[in-house]
């Protein structure tokens, strides 16, 4: 199996793992880790596409590479904003849960 | 020569893997932070070996970046893991 295919399969597996972490793990920080794994799996899919697009003397297609760089930057910004929100939520409410306030509109 | 470089990279990666198993398990957070240092050094070695063997240009800069940022991660750990009372003292001082 070639290196790009292997990387692509790793990416596919990471997408599943990240998705599971993001959807199932209750702690927001761990959801965020899941999101980052998911994103990085998607980027690896771009990586295999770039590598299989090697042509014209380039070892990899530059267009998907550029998109991944943009994607990594955006993912970082997203992580930073989430962390800031989470820490602020923790300070304001003393808890770090995403469960919607039970009973506010179901109390009766 | 290529095979030798790759073999060496594989060996480094193997030691890193074994180290990771030991280190990620803890028990303390300091132990775990060592995992990052371990990979910082081991990863750079493996990276340079692989790059040399496969003829990837520009990998030296990745190695430089990794070296700086692995150190940076440790700094962040030391910084955020500073004992609470130290912080309280700081608060009182200012």
């Amino acid at each position, binding site marked *: 199996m070639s290196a790009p295919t292997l990387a*692509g399969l790793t990416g*596919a597996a990471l*997408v599943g793992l990240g998705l599971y972490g993001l959807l199932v793990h209750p702690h927001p920080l761990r959801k965020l880790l899941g999101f980052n794994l998911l994103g990085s799996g998607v980027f690896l899919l771009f990586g295999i596409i770039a590598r299989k697009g090697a042509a*014209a003397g*380039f070892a990899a297609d530059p267009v998907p590479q550029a998109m991944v760089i943009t994607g990594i930057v955006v993912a970082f910004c997203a992580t930073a904003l989430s962390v*800031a929100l989470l820490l602020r939520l923790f300070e304001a409410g003393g808890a770090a849960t995403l469960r919607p306030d039970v009973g506010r509109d179901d109390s009766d | 020569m290529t095979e030798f470089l790759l073999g060496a990279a594989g060996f480094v990666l*193997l030691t890193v893997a074994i180290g990771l198993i030991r280190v990620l398990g803890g028990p303390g957070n300091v132990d775990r932070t060592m995992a990052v240092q371990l990979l910082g050094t081991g990863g750079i070695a493996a990276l340079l070996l692989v790059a040399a063997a496969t003829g990837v*240009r520009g990998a030296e800069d990745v190695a430089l970046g990794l070296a700086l940022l692995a150190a940076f991660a440790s*700094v962040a750990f030391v910084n955020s893991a500073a004992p609470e009372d130290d*912080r309280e003292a700081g608060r009182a001082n200012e």
Partner: protein
Amino acid sequence: MSVIQALDISLAVLVLAVAIWTIVSRDAFAAVVGYVAYGLLVSLVWVRLFAVDVALTEAAIGSGVTGVLLISAAVRLRGTEAAVAAEWPGAGSRVLAAALCMVVTAALAAVVLTMPDPGATLAPEAARHLAETELGNPVTAVLMAFRALDTLLEKVVLFLAVIGVWSLAADGNWGGIAGPRRATNRQGALAFLAQLLPPVGIVVAIHIVWIGANEPGGAFQGGAILAAMWMIVIMARLAEAPAIGERRLRLALVAGPAVFLAVGLMGFAVANAFLAYPAGLAKPLIVFVEVFMTLSIAVSLPMLVLGPPDRPSS
């Protein structure tokens, strides 16, 4: 099986193992450390995919700065895990969720395995027009010329992220000093490291920005390293974090997108299209824009990691 294949497979196994660790580990801090290790390993994978620019970005952002951000968050959120643990869905739900996620993975794996080789590509197009950009690095050409709008908008994303983080401040702290208060201990190894590393880091960062035009590297990777150096200095308490009301800070934050936008608008007049560069001046203009983008990145990243202002400026 050749040596390189064995190496690729063990690398993939290692990446997946660390990724699984970050999901299943009980302790949030351990998971975050696992994630930092994961980022380092993934940048190795990127080198294997001959995408050195991406490897550099992943090393700098994906594991470096993100790692620091998450490590400090994990430390500050110590003790919140026990309360949240009660919200775990039941075992049946978890198995079902895992099965559904596996379906997604299987679909993607099938796509990967049936992907044609060589696949569709824009590399020949990029190669044909590379000379017009006067650059040697095709990735930089895509980022700064062919798809310049996306890069410009990405810088606006970064700018908005800073506003988003700042907007979480308490009202009374607006304009104050970014980030939580730090103790004033100036002694020790940390301070020494913070004096030792930055000179090296600054040189490396300038090198990476400069060669970005022709070799792997560029504004973001260089800017990220500069940002890391500044953060080390702040963390070691050798310098105070800036107040977010400071004019200089604000100008530095918008310099990158603003200069990019201005040069792009200049294209209307001198190169008959928005975001076009006049012939013969493309490379100098691109480097000019990249210098300001590096500055903005080097200032934005620490703002994002430090968090909203926590106290009024004196």
